[in-house]
């Protein structure tokens, strides 16, 4: 009997945790399927209902509006460009550094590692004004400016995770190549690089999500260039069609649209993401 009670309690706890984790997302979906009148019903309804007949009546109007909104579509495009470019750049640059830090012997390795690690904790807001000066000084527009500034968090992260990955690769592999007369660089290109492909995917995905998420730099650097706004900025500044009334139906539809692809990606790469996150943090 006690055992059964324990089981029931256990599943109740699991249920509560799942509801807690997923409810806000359910609420966004629910609200995105309501029209203006349904959103303003009091008390609010847990499924879209007709205000008069109380029957179930979801609408897709918000989704139509969102996909017709220039600002949102442009935001998606800008975000995709900026996040992919920042990710690819940091993978390309970081891979070399990670190989050196994970597998080569040189003076000052520990300090180099410390510098990279401290960079992952860098308060980005500190350098907001300085970075603005750098970007205008280089004559960059908002999009390349964002790509460059996102490297401040994607690059140290990439280097850190990939370093721990390289460190774990067996030394014998490289010794064998060495015996065959390969140079360090050949070993890297022919033996290690193919092995790193899975780690690159994980690290890249995590860096991509971080860049996709970024708001502070995007908000600041697109302030005078609204056409370059990314998704987070577009959603934060979603235009109100009716004065003073924020269009929460459309905002929720936009929220669902941008969240679903990321959630699907995350679920596909679940195991690797958890491994990557813990490699980034736990091996620290």
């Amino acid at each position, binding site marked *: 009997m006690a055992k059964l009670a324990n089981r029931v309690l256990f599943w109740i706890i699991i249920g509560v945790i799942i509801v807690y984790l997923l409810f806000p997302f359910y609420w966004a979906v629910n609200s995105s399927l309501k029209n203006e009148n349904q959103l303003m019903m*009091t008390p609010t309804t847990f499924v879209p209902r007709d205000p008069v007949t109380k029957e179930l009546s979801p609408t897709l109007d918000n989704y139509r509006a969102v996909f017709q909104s220039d600002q949102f579509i442009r935001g998606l495009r800008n975000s995709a460009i900026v996040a992919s470019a920042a990710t690819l750049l940091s993978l390309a640059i970081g891979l070399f550094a990670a190989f050196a830090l994970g597998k080569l012997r040189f003076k000052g390795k520990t300090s180099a590692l410390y510098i990279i690690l401290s960079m992952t904790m860098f*308060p980005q807001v500190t*350098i907001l004004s300085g970075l603005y000066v750098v970007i205008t000084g280089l004559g960059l527009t908002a999009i390349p400016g964002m790509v460059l500034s996102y490297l401040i968090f994607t690059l140290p992260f990439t280097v850190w995770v990939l370093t721990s990955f390289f460190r774990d690769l067996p030394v014998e592999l490289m010794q064998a190549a060495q015996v065959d007369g390969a140079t360090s660089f050949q070993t890297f290109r022919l033996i290690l690089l193919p092995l790193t492909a899975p780690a690159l995917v994980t690290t890249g995905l995590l860096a991509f999500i971080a860049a996709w998420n970024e*708001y*502070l730099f995007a908000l600041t650097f697109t302030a005078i260039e609204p056409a370059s706004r990314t998704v987070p*900025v577009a959603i934060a500044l979603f235009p109100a069609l009716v004065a003073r009334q924020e269009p929460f139906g459309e905002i929720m539809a936009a929220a669902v649209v941008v969240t679903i692809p990321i959630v699907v990606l995350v679920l596909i790469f679940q195991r690797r993401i958890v491994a990557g996150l813990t490699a980034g943090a736990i091996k620290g």
Partner: protein
Amino acid sequence: MMFKKNTGSKLLQREQRLAYLLLLPTFLVLIVVALYPLGLVFVTSFTDRTFASPREPNYVGFNNYAQLLSMTIRELPPLIDEETGLQAVDQKTGEPLYERPLRVLPREPRRYREVSQFSFFGKRYVLGASDPDFIKAVWDTLVFTVISVLLETILGLGIALVVNSPFKGRGVMRAAMLVPWAVITVVSARMWQWMLAPTRVGVINVILQGLGLGDGNIAFLSQPEWQLPALIMVDVWKTTPFMALLLLAGLQLIPNELYEAARVDGAGSFRQFISITMPLLRPTMAVALVFRTLDALRVFDLFQVMLAQSRYSMASYNYYQLIGNRAMGQASAIGVIIFIFIFIFAVAYIRLLGVKTD
């Protein structure tokens, strides 16, 4: 460690040169996007430079810092009722009345305004600052950080312990844990903003009212006493799963034999938790705490989206000073202060918890 068999010094030199070459691009980028801007911010913080303006900046020394950080505590003398010669009291509430802070706080060399009042040994004091908004932002950021990290750790540990026990559907559970983490912070701020709507169109008000709490019209985001709890709730929702995943990974590193041995010795589950789980989880928890704390200290998105200019975090205050007021010199000084703040926190944490960085 590698190339053990033929460690010629020439080979070693070549390896070293290659390493430096490979590190060069990373460090160049970090100089351009981090160190150089940091230097610029440091220099600018000693000037009165204006944002996006051609005006030549002047060197103002530590003026920006003094303006941001100057604080003073003054005693508020009681208001004396002319007729009775006793301290005047409020007609409605019966509270004793004191002099208005405005008349007590100094105006030279800079004007102080009230941050808060407090009583101490029967006397009334006022805390004044030349930039009360910044002082409040620092305080609010600290409160936000301490409470949300504490809650996240406790909840995260709880969830990790539950998910760590083998059961059917553990994979689904783990997947569900990744959802809040995957939602863009701005999007989650907007989602919660809508759920926290100040009337019964907001689901939180409806649920609370259903539970017999509140009148269904709690303005979570505009009533000062609700603002921080509301933001902490959102942050806890968003980052607890991440904490739980880290702790879960740590739990799985603990060998099962330890628990078996403890069971043989007759230790109950609470005893096992205290003497096995906690000590062995400590390193993981320390790292997770450092990451989360430093992250919470630089919180921007939640404050900017949900509270705009009604209440600031350190980072959102910096942003509004730079973009709203175009006070670049002052914003830079705020940036430097945040940097020092986070640096001190990081060092203290690492010392305190004994995090190993190698």
